[in-house]
């Protein structure tokens, strides 16, 4: 699992009211201590884990799902799952990498659940709005991207966002998705083709795709 050690994390956002930087806290307790604290449900260690990793997890969820109204719930779910499965953490990758993989899994489960519900309620994917209060060209472009992504199969969507939005290498994406790089390549190829076809029909993205094709 050396790939995990190279897994690039979401960029740390700028100054905010959030807890101190990861580096500062990590010096206080080793990862092994943190995992042991999760296993024993040590409240202070659990608090620390949450504070240290809540942001990377949240950003990863947002990368995959976009501005999702259930982001907060999913975020909570990631930590609950981490708590429940800490005993199975083998220490062959960084704790952060492990939490990111859990986040991708939670996002995958949510997307699949939505796909089932959509099928049951006959709701077209484009009917599901990209939840965002922001405005402007960048915001509308982001909304358009996630609207198209919602029409992709779950695995292709995850591969696409990890590779092109989060900027992971194929190796990192494979580690986060828990599959081989070959599988990631295949999913990416399909996701690209599908996204390209959809983007050509979307007014906000058509220009970008066509200009790329002409150049």
């Amino acid at each position: 699992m050396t790939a995990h050690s190279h897994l690039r994390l979401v960029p740390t956002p700028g100054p905010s009211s959030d807890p101190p930087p990861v580096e500062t806290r990590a010096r206080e307790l080793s990862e092994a201590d943190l995992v042991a604290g999760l296993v024993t449900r040590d409240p202070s260690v659990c608090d620390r884990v949450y504070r240290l990793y809540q942001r990377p997890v949240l950003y990863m969820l947002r990368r995959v799902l976009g501005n999702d109204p259930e982001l907060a719930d999913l975020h909570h779910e990631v930590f609950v799952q981490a708590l429940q499965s800490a005993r199975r953490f083998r220490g062959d990758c960084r704790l952060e990498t492990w939490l990111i993989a859990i986040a991708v899994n939670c996002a995958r489960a949510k997307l699949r659940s939505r796909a089932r519900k959509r099928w049951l309620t006959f709701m077209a994917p484009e009917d599901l709005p990209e939840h965002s209060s922001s405005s402007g060209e960048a915001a509308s472009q982001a909304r358009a991207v996630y609207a198209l992504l919602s029409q992709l199969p779950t695995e292709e969507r995850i591969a696409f966002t990890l590779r092109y939005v989060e900027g992971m290498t194929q190796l990192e994406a494979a580690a986060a998705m828990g599959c081989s790089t070959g599988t990631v390549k295949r999913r990416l190829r399909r996701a690209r083709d599908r996204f390209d076809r959809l983007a050509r029909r979307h007014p906000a993205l058509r220009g970008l795709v066509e200009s790329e094709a002409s150049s």
Partner: protein
Amino acid sequence: MSRALRKLGRQVARHQDDTPPQLDTERGMARFRVEVDRSHLRPRRTAYPAIALAVACVALVVGFFWPRPPLTVRLQDGSDAESWIEGAADAHFSDGSLVEAQPRSRWRVATRTARGATIQLERGGLTAHVVHRDDTSWQVDAGPFAIRVTGTAFTTRWDPAEQIFELTMLDGTVVLSGPVVGGRREVAAPERLRVQLEPRRLSILSPEPPSAAVATIETPTAGAPSPPTAPAEASANPPPTEAPRSSSEPSPAQAARSATTTTDAVSWNEHARARRYPEALAELHRIGADAVVGRASPSDLLLIAQTARLGGDAALAERALSQLHDHHPDSVQARTALFLAGRMQFDRGQHPAAIASLGAYLSTSPNGAFASEAQVLLILALHRSGRIDEARQRASLYLQRHPTGPQADRLQSILEP
């Protein structure tokens, strides 16, 4: 395309980074603490007990309804116990039961279930040691007799030529069904029972106490008056130490043992197939035997004839055989009817008629199911009707082909001057 996508992705990521998601960290942490406290206070919940319980329940249900495999049987020489076996052999069953066949017997294991087996004894004798269990279900079919066993040891013999059945209880009880004995008769150790079909005679031999008697019951044939009880014949049957006692009716004790389970709802052929001949005959007469004979199929006619013969209603047996012969002359059952007629005629001492019937059977079915028995009866009938040379000639041929066949000893005596 990849370059454009990377560019697009970067723009989206930049936009997301510029507009950080709104998450109330303190509230999220409080939620997480609740979860930590809950799981800290609560013993670690795993699905294992529930899964184990579910698996156990499923196993219990499946195990309850899953058909158990039938018993296995092993012969000493490794031969197939479900084919007819000639001569002595021991069959060991997987439940610990043992069947020991005597020399010159012809028998086989007809069916096997998880609870027992059915042994067919065509001729000869066998001793069965059946291991008792709550649901044991064993049966030994000896000629027209059925011995139902739930765990016991006994020895039985069936002589098809002499039409004599013997049952010696070694341990426990069995329920016997068949001609003369009635529908169901419980026989308990140390009882010995001997049934002769022609003339119809049931002898119950009790070896203990020393003064125990031999009960010989001459059962009247239905539709015909029973010959008077002959004490001399009765006393000839048991061993010399046993005092004879004759009766035309079963004793109260015997009557108590004889359980009749007939119900009107059971059809005559169900009774007949279960070897409850008196009940089958009673049902036939109740619904009109002649009418049944008039419209019966060849198979049913043969069953009526067998039932009537073994139940002691010779007149009905003859009517069924005549109907079979007259209305279904080309059927397989009509050929078997020839043997049955020959058998009946032989039993009555009508040897010329028996010779004709048995000869006709052998000419139409030289390899039929009853060919061997028909040969023996024909030789005996020829001998008894004074056609000695012809009987000897046939006996010699028969013994060359079947040196250990049924009645070989008896036929050997015919050859002796």
